């Protein structure tokens, strides 16, 4: 190995001599002056910049800084005022009245009013855009006057705030910008930064909005570069060409943590990865067989292999840091217990068709470990790895024994449990049905007292895990790294990339 390196070094020196490149001086990199531009390397290019239409995280990394929502999550993911200064809920809990902030302007100088809110929400609902389901309980959105909006719901909806403020997919957009079609490449919002330049394939530049209602940002702007190769992004960060990145190979996290040239931000995310067994098929409809599998898998090994130990193994969906966390530790790896449960169920071995997808490589890695884990129980795992679109079709038609996938971007506990485990849930592909859980989830959905609500979810979650509707594996971490001179930035568990409060050397 050492010899190879020496040879390459020699040939490099030769090449430099031949080409006559002067590489003798060190080069001044990084921003200078007072209006410093923050350079952020993200791992991919946005597909488009219409917040209501895109589903790409790379788009949302940029859009987070361009748009505002009526309310927005703070670092504990509790909803705080944003474009709405305050809100009130009627006594029958069916009408939410939002008082909007006055004097807010869009980046093109036009005033932000209640009509913009109505236009934005009606657009999502009427055109059935990808986030329309978040408004499923909404009957109407009306402007009472220029700075007051009423949202009427068909039943009490305590998660309405997280639905409209959870992410920039619910942003308030400008009608003219939408109708001209410019929104896909030149979005106009009310946020702390405005769109300045988009060079396809290379970078997007945003400029600070001096008129931002929350106060002008301290930095002059942001340049987003698209660097998919993690090692390149890390090299660029260390050499000062970029100031921030989340394009980080997980195997480098440990060595980077000890590196003084970078600041690491790591926070457990609200995303979770799980296994689900098809309860319309035998023998997986037997709760004991599902529990046996929950006992047989080695979560720590899966965490190690999929994330180099950066994820946190879990047995329920919601991570420990959340206010909605419930303690639960039934399924420690125990092959004897697993075998006993299988014997009790009369299971005598067989094959299991495990549906994962090459588009999420962690599912393939985990599948190999799971296959190994289940072998001693006489279960032969046959792993299938189609592309994600096919995976979705197979899931929806119920063509699987077990599948692995993740739920990303959850905020309210309803996001974690309802559509996945309610009998009528839209994402209950495993066919789980328990009237008691249905009742708890329905009650929790309309319960406005937070403690009572938390208790309902804790009960539902415990039953769901006991009956192995989902076998939970882990919560991955949000991992970001930045220039130590950057202050005012924090890695958030909802993966929102907010640069409005950062400054250099502060």
């Amino acid at each position, binding site marked *: 190995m050492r010899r190879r390196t020496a040879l390459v070094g020699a*040939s490099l020196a030769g090449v430099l001599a031949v080409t006559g490149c002067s590489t003798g001086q*060190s*080069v001044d990199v990084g921003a200078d002056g007072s209006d410093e531009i923050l350079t952020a390397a993200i791992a991919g290019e946005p597909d488009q910049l219409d917040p209501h239409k895109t589903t790409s995280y790379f788009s949302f990394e940029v859009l987070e800084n361009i748009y505002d929502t009526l309310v927005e999550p703070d670092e504990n993911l509790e909803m705080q005022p944003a474009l709405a200064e305050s809100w009130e809920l009627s006594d029958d809990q069916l009408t939410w009245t939002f008082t909007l902030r006055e004097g807010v302007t869009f980046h093109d100088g036009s005033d932000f009013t209640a009509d913009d809110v109505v236009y934005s929400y009606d657009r999502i609902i009427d055109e059935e855009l990808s986030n329309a389901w978040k408004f499923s309980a909404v009957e109407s959105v009306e402007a009472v006057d220029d700075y007051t909006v009423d949202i009427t719901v068909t039943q009490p909806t305590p998660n309405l705030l997280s639905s409209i403020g959870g992410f920039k997919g619910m942003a308030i957009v400008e009608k003219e910008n939408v109708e001209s079609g410019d929104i896909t490449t030149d979005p106009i919002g009310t946020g702390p930064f405005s769109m300045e330049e988009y060079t396809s394939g*290379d970078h997007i530049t945003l400029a600070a909005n001096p008129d931002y209602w929350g106060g002008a940002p301290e930095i002059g702007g942001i340049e987003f570069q698209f660097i998919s190769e993690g090692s390149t992004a890390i090299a660029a960060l260390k050499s000062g060409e970029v100031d921030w990145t989340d394009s980080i190979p997980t195997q480098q996290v440990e060595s980077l943590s000890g590196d003084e040239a970078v600041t690491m931000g790591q926070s457990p995310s609200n995303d979770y990865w799980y296994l689900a067994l098809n309860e319309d098929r035998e023998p997986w409809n037997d709760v004991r067989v599902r529990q046996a599998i929950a006992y047989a898998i080695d979560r720590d090994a899966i965490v190690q292999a999929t994330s180099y130990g950066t994820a946190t193994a879990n047995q329920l969906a919601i991570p420990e840091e959340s206010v909605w966390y419930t303690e639960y530790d039934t399924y420690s790896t125990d092959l004897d217990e697993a075998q006993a449960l299988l014997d009790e169920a009369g299971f005598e071995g067989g094959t299991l068709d495990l549906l994962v997808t090459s588009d999420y490589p962690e599912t393939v890695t985990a599948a190999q470990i799971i296959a190994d884990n289940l072998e001693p129980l006489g279960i032969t795992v046959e792993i299938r790895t189609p592309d994600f679109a096919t995976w979705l079709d197979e899931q929806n038609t119920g063509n699987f024994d077990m599948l692995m996938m993740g739920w990303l971007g959850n905020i309210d506990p309803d996001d974690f449990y309802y559509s996945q485990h309610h009998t009528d849930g839209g994402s209950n592909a495993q066919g789980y049905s328990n009237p008691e859980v249905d009742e708890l989830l329905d009650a929790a959905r309309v319960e406005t007292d937070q403690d009572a609500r938390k208790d309902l979810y804790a009960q539902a979650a415990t039953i769901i895990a006991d009956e192995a509707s989902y076998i939970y594996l882990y919560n991955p971490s949000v991992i970001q790294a930045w220039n130590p001179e950057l202050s005012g930035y924090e890695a958030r568990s909802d993966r929102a990339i907010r640069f409005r409060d950062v400054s250099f050397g502060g």
Partner: protein
Amino acid sequence: MTTTDTRRREDGTRMPSFLTSPTLRFVARRLLYSAVVLFGVIIVVFSIVHLVPGDPVRIALGTRYTPEAYEALRAASGLDRPLWEQFFSYLGNAVTGNLGVSFRNGDPVTVALLERLPATVSLAVVGLVIALLISVPAGIWSALHEGKLSDGIVRVVSQFGVSVPDFWMGMLLITLFSSVLGWLPSSGYVPLSEDPVQWLRRVILPALAVGLVAGAIMTRYIRSAVLEVAAQGYVRTARSKGLAPRIVTFRHIVKNALIPVLTIAGIQLATILGGVIVVEVVFAWPGLGRLVYDAVSARDYPLIQGSVLLIAVMFLVVNLVVDVLYALIDPRIRLS
């Protein structure tokens, strides 16, 4: 059909007078050949969508799938029409430079390709220059010192260069020149027209990554070309006439050995133009390679089709130019 036609023309019977020059005749034949290949490429590129397993529209939509979106995209991309109709419409559009719109964002494919072309051409040309600067002196030196220590060193180093994947070379260069020494940026592109100094600083590392590997390959070709020429009878004749070794080396051996180098350089240029996908990804270089990578990741079939077609056209053009130059330099080529 085309063969008969060409043969008849070779007889000179129905040849227009301006085509009587053997060089022009060769060029005409070469153009016709390229047109036939291009037609074949268009058939293959057109078939991509129809040969992939699964429904490309369904795959492109992924989680955005709704029956309405599916029908809309299918109609927009013309996939609901009969196959022959689709083919002729694709052919007609391709000839006029319309390669359809991207599944991902609805942008015209031709525009996306043309935006990316300058970055890839910069990278390929600088890479080729580096490869030539390494391989010509190294290959000649090595051949003229055959069996000596310096020949051994060149052969070992070039063997190493041939065996190293270009992306690994890229990582190595980034580690050394960006991370450890901090001399050059690891990523990004600045157009030459905008800032030549920044362009050069940014193009050096990726161009080295492709140029070192291509240079190693070409060194080996040049070495054997020189050795082959040195063994020819006319070289022995020149030596026996008592010409100075230096004159024999440069006038007789090197000059003749460099003719095949043109072909190798052409092939390498075409390879670099079409094959720098991984290097462009490593260096976040906004060229065609990155575009292909992104298009494949997003399963954007119109964009994949367009990129493949453009890369094939570049191959054809480079090969055509090389063949014509070759024919101009070496008259024997025209006869074969």
